[in-house]
């Protein structure tokens, strides 16, 4: 009896596959892509527990257990990387978070359509520029020889500053340029959220004699709160994945101590020094921390009564 039903279930599955054979054939490239390039590397992670050499391949290389992890955790680089990654991420999160909201609030208060439209058009533009171009602009602006900032310092009688080799300036430069590049782009989301707030609330407030500031404080901001919460979780979750491309372009041996983050370290150790296994171990640690952060941020948000991401 039991056997029969399981056979018939197998039969339905088979019929189902046969019925969907065209769709499945269309779907085949997608399956191949995810298996090879998204799940394949997960399998490749076992090299973090081996001494990988290109010649013996993933399977042929020798097992070494947690050796690479122990080397990493006992290395003084570990704390430096941990601190740098966390601080760059944290500063970008804390200082960068309010700007898109502020911009959206200000744009929302503009009555002149033309002003609103053109400010928006301009403020998105940096989102279309590559990190290489952005870094190049930073270097131009801060150049001690002809950079505009140093020109101004000189005009006011100050000494020239070598911003990019000064460890004290790396973090501010990184954070300020992130804000410059992302504010316009991120404000799109908040503007849309503001557009979703019911106009009747504003009309009622107006009848009650509320000023613009009152309306922003008591209607717009509370209306934005759920969006802010979601954005905050997303950003906390990706905090540890600091924009390593920009770090890679802006740092130099003089600023390694404050600028080196997990990803740039992985790139240097793994791809420049061909220390694949060690770098894979560092990368795995980074990925785990990132996942834990995203999961806990989501849990906190649910506890607060807001919506989680899932």
């Amino acid at each position: 009896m039991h056997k029969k039903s399981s056979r018939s279930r197998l039969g339905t599955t088979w019929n189902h596959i046969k019925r969907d054979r065209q769709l499945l054939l269309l779907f085949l490239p997608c399956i191949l892509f995810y298996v090879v390039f998204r799940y394949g590397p997960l399998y490749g992670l076992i090299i973090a527990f081996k001494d990988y050499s290109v010649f013996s391949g993933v399977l042929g290389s020798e097992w070494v257990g947690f050796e690479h992890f122990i080397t990493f955790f006992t290395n003084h680089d570990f704390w430096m990387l941990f601190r740098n990654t966390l601080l760059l991420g944290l500063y970008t999160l804390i200082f960068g978070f309010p700007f898109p909201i502020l911009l959206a609030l200000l744009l929302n208060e503009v009555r002149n359509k033309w002003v609103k439209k053109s400010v928006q058009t301009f403020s998105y533009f940096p989102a279309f520029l590559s990190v290489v171009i952005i870094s190049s602009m930073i270097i131009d602006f801060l150049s001690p020889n002809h950079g505009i900032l140093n020109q101004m310092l000189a005009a006011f009688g100050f000494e020239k500053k070598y911003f990019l080799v000064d460890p004290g300036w790396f973090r501010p430069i990184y954070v300020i340029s992130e804000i410059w590049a992302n504010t316009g782009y991120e404000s799109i989301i908040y503007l849309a959220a503001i557009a979703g707030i019911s106009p009747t609330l504003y009309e009622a407030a107006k009848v009650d004699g509320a000023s613009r500031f009152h309306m922003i404080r008591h209607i717009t901001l509370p209306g934005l709160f759920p969006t802010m919460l979601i954005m905050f979780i997303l950003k906390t979750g990706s905090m540890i994945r600091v924009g390593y491309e920009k770090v890679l372009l802006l740092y130099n041996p003089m600023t390694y101590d404050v600028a080196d983050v997990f990803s740039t370290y992985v790139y240097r150790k793994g791809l420049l020094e061909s220390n694949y296994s060690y770098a894979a171990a560092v990368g795995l640690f980074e990925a785990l921390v990132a996942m834990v952060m995203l999961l806990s941020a989501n849990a906190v948000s649910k506890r607060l009564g807001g919506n989680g991401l899932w």
Partner: protein
Amino acid sequence: MVGERKISWFGVINTLILALVAVATLYPILYITAISLSDTVSVVQGKVFLFPKGLNFEAYGEVLKNDTIPRAYLNSVFYTALGTFVNLLFTAVAAYPLSQKGFFGRKFFMTAIVLTMFLNPGIIPTYVVVQQLGLTDSVWALVLPNAIWTMELIILKSFYENMSTQIREAALIDGASEYRILFNIVIPLSKPALASIGLFYFMGHWNSFFLPLIYLNDADKYPLQVVLRDMLIYSAENDAGLVDRSALAPQSIKNATIVLSMIPVLLIYPFAQKYFAKGVMLGSEKG
């Protein structure tokens, strides 16, 4: 309303702040354009602030004479065109089965796909896979490992889901195959969605520098961004006083290259803006 006609202090200050924001975003771009159009002496002496000093097109002439940059430009155009095409094809073909309610294994596939957004093994294992497949030093190393962006796939799938199912059912009854339905009906009907995600793919390829940097060894194959990066590091070291190479002022040549690299972006920008905002919104909703 009477109150709104009056010029309020709030309105004036607000407009001023926003004007400041616009200037702050635009100024760096105007500045590099001015540098690229100025003569070397003015650039080195730091006389350029907003308008080009000693207006000339020498830097552009140098860029075009030199064969590295035009070749890199063509490489970038080729990689971007091929990459975006592959992305759109893969995504469109993958999203269609996923959008069909009764599709075999749909739930399993969706879970497996969404899961990859959280399981990111990092660059080394991916690099090893690409290397073992023998893709290193070819365009395919830039195209295939990112043939589908999960977020874009989800966006397109939701778009297909919102399309009328009656069209498909009618076409099936008429004996059309799934391939015909997809390529002759669904894809033509989803042009706005494809334009929106295509834009993200386009920008991703045009601005990509890290992947070409790690996967391409042959300098002849470098795209523009990698060449720019080489100029950048050279001039950064120069500026920081780490390297003493005096006579040359690569500033104007570098900035001319940057301006040239922004041309495709500026060309699509008017269209881009509309779709870009839409894409950001969809992305954030499904996030």
